[in-house]
């Protein structure tokens, strides 16, 4: 908690209850994320991981507790454009071309035309979609759409990238390829990433730290520091240490998941 070590995200005693059904989605969450950290939030459905992501992004207001992003209150950080967000669906606008979709946040930040154009070209290069600039979203595959969404989220160089199960709707092969691409993009931009997933192997493969959550009420069950070196590759998934870490995360989930419904427990396997 020393001021010397800068944090990108600081969450202190955050609780969120939804009045409908009197659900406690999050209870007493404390979490700090350092610059360039890649943190995954993992847990069964109902553990509040997506809620926590939205609390960081000031899209949901916590019932109590404080959220600080880039040293500012979350509201201020959102107004300043300190984070980009990617959802499970690409959420692209059909009436805009790929290039115009990526330019949207830049337009909203009031960037000039020439500056926008240069940045969009650079982002298209980054996600390797240079030849698709003038296509419309519905002309692209699901994986390509998600790459456009990532380019859009990173276009204004936010310090923080929030990702809510971004590859959850994709097939396994596309997902593993995009995992590698995301790591390479992350290495080039140096953003801090908060990545919500319910895939244990995806969380371990991507993250420098896995935050394991448990449901009802949503709480942090524990942390797993992933000491696999970057850059990671296809071989990383075959290393013994990778399997040890996967087991460690699974054990944490299971220990805290004794009260889970059978299908929730099965979903974690």
């Amino acid at each position: 908690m020393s001021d010397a070590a800068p944090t990108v995200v600081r969450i202190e005693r955050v609780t969120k209850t939804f009045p409908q059904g009197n659900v406690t989605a999050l209870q007493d969450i404390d979490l700090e994320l350092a610059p360039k950290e890649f943190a995954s939030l993992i847990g069964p459905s109902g553990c509040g991981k997506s809620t926590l992501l939205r609390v960081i992004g000031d899209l949901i207001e916590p019932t109590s507790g404080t959220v600080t992003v880039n040293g500012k209150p979350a509201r201020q950080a959102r107004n300043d454009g300190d984070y980009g967000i990617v959802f499970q669906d690409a959420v692209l606008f059909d009436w805009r071309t790929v290039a115009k979709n990526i330019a949207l946040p830049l337009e909203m930040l009031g960037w000039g035309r020439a500056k926008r154009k240069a940045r969009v070209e650079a982002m298209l290069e980054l996600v390797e979609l240079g030849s698709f600039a003038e296509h419309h979203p519905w002309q692209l595959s699901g994986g390509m759409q998600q790459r456009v969404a990532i380019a859009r989220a990173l276009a204004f160089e936010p310090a923080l990238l929030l990702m809510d199960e971004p590859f959850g709707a994709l097939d396994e092969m596309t997902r593993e390829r995009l995992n590698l691409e995301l790591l390479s993009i992350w290495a080039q931009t140096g953003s801090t990433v908060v990545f919500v997933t319910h895939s244990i192997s995806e969380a371990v493969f991507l993250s420098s730290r896995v935050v394991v959550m448990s449901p009802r009420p949503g709480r942090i069950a524990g942390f797993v520091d992933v000491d696999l070196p970057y850059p990671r590759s296809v071989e990383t998934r075959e290393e013994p240490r990778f399997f040890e870490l996967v087991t460690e995360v699974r054990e944490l989930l299971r220990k805290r998941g004794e009260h889970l419904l059978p299908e929730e427990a099965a979903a974690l396997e």
Partner: protein
Amino acid sequence: MSGIVISERGPTVGGRAVRQAGEWLPALVVAAVVIGTWEGAIVAFHIQQFLLPKPSDIASTFWTQRHELWPAGWYTFKEALGGFAIGSLAGVAAATLVGRFKGLGTALMPIFIAANAVPIIAFAPIFGAWFNPISPHSKMAVAAVLCFLPVMVNTLRGLQSASPRQLELMRSYAASELEIWRRVRVPTALPFLFTALKVASVLAMIGAIVGEYFGGALNALGVIINSEANVFHFTTAWAGILVACLLGIALYSSVVLVERVAIRWAPQARDS
């Protein structure tokens, strides 16, 4: 991926013309067969002229009386167009207000939906009394009221059909309500609006002509169809109906053309 790029280049102009002709051919054949059967059946079964005139007679009347029918059609078309414009604009304005102020929607929507079930045409004689029955205004009013509800209801649905994720994304950019409106809600509502405008274009012609059945200027198409039928000039009445059809199709097609330009981006615009 290269397949997408190739299809993007599109077919040649000549190739497209040939393909479009090919798409129209079945419909043209069906139309020719129907008209031929109609003509043949009247001759074969000696069907009385007043029951069903021959298509060839309708066509010749359509030509010989063109100097009465087309000006009458144009007169009625202007009523329909005026009603279409007034009703649609009011519908869009009402949808905008109801979409913006939730309380207004709670108060007004049940009434609008109940009003939707009212047979507006039944009010045509009343509108005649409110306005001068000879003036075009009473017909414009019928057409406008007919157009209002479908445009209002569809536009409202369109304005409300931005996905929660799209709205979250815009909020992550700290977008104001006005910006969300302009950049998300309006473009999302456009396909809904044009669907409603196509329906309204048809309703406007119906409203104007049926309005004229209850009285109107002597040179109005509905009045001519009605009075000619009353004096057993059925061929003229049929020719008038043909004029009404052609004008109705013209109005509908112009809406479709504007739609093609306004929402070029839509996937369905390329398929149709």
